[in-house]
């Protein structure tokens, strides 16, 4: 889990790792299933070493009972993160190039590459849609799942555009 997310969760109140983990599970729903619990403790330990969080409990407590709070440096990093507008970049150029070099080098039919890719994305969409159907309406996880659905739909539409274009090109060849 990203360090900033863990830090920002501590802004609410000092917490145990397992409390943070539970809040994460609440927000992510079925998406939290793949997340390793140990990762939270690793992240907290790293943040402590970096001076972004500090222990507020007795140092003699068991390690899974450690309660952490934000330090001023941690607080500053959270503020920075909140105003950050970076966004994951979809890397479509690799697939785009695959189609072009496939056609140029007669390596494969670009249209069948598009078809295979479309099947794969449809399978993913099927999984996410099933998860979304099981989610309670208006839950945090439903909102996230909807985002994944919309991105997959956008990708599928692009693949459709690719297919139309490559079909035209093969006709004109």
């Amino acid at each position, binding site marked *: *889990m*990203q360090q900033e997310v863990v830090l920002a969760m501590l802004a609410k109140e000092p917490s145990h790792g397992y409390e943070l983990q539970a809040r994460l599970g609440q927000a*992510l729903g*079925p*998406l*939290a*299933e*793949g*997340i*390793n619990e140990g*990762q939270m403790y690793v992240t907290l330990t790293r943040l402590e070493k970096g001076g972004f969080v500090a222990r507020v409990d007795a140092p003699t407590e068991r390690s899974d009972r450690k309660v952490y709070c934000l330090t001023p440096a941690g607080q500053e990093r959270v503020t920075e993160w909140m105003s950050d507008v970076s966004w*994951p970049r979809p890397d479509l150029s690799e697939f785009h190039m695959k189609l072009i070099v496939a056609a140029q080098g007669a390596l494969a039919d670009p249209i069948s590459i598009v*078809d295979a890719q*479309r*099947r*794969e994305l*449809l*399978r*993913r*969409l*099927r*999984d*996410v*849609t*099933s*998860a*979304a*159907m099981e989610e309670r*309406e208006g839950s945090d996880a439903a909102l*996230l*799942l*909807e985002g*994944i*659905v919309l991105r*997959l*739909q956008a990708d*599928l539409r692009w693949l459709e555009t690719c297919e139309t274009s490559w079909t035209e090109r093969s006709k004109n060849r």
Partner: protein
Amino acid sequence: MTTEEPMKEPEKSLVRARGLRKEYGRDEGLVRAVDDIDLDIARGETVAVMGPSGCGKSTLLHLLGGLDRPSGGELWLDGRRIDRLDERALARLRRREIGFIFQAFHLMDELTARENVELPALLAGRSPRDARTRALSLLEEVGLADRSNHLPSALSGGQRQRVAIARALVNEPTVVLADEPTGNLDSTATYEVLRLLARLRSSGLTIVIVTHDERVAATTDRLISMRDGTFVDQTRLTGGTRGSLADLAGLER
């Protein structure tokens, strides 16, 4: 991988088309909306047909449901040849064998939810008591038992479509045909309809859905892509992904 499994035996198909054609206009202006299509749909199968506007997918659905007559080819429903039925037999077929679901719901505004569901049952000759019992039980099945006396105008889009689905089922159709069933719905209502379709599917109903919505298509057994009146791709969608949902969300583990 699950791409190409052998098709079911033709004689076991619930819906079977051979060389199905629908043409409009003539000479220079001839349009082949459905161009020599072969199709087999097994009992209990759910099929989505996708494609750009004007690819012929709605025309195909209309042919399958007897709303329109083919220009050529053969069409069977449940072992019975239906492309040559006269108008009266066709009307009877539409009423008893086919359940239609439309994008714009097509509910009667002046009738309550229950009356809308009852109507096709009464037209098919069921007794008023039987029609009412069936309508109420179907409305319960689609989660609208407490809305049975509401007019469509008092229902949300998702609720209206669920009434329309109950209506499509009232005569226990052999096959359900849906034309853009989520086309007029927001995301929440789309999931209401998807949940319901998933339930119908697991109850063994045969459903053909024409749709632009990839979500709808992704939850069927088979996806047919149509272009210029013909099928350009068919995909069986039984498999899941190899990755996990968390990967799809870009979560680090």
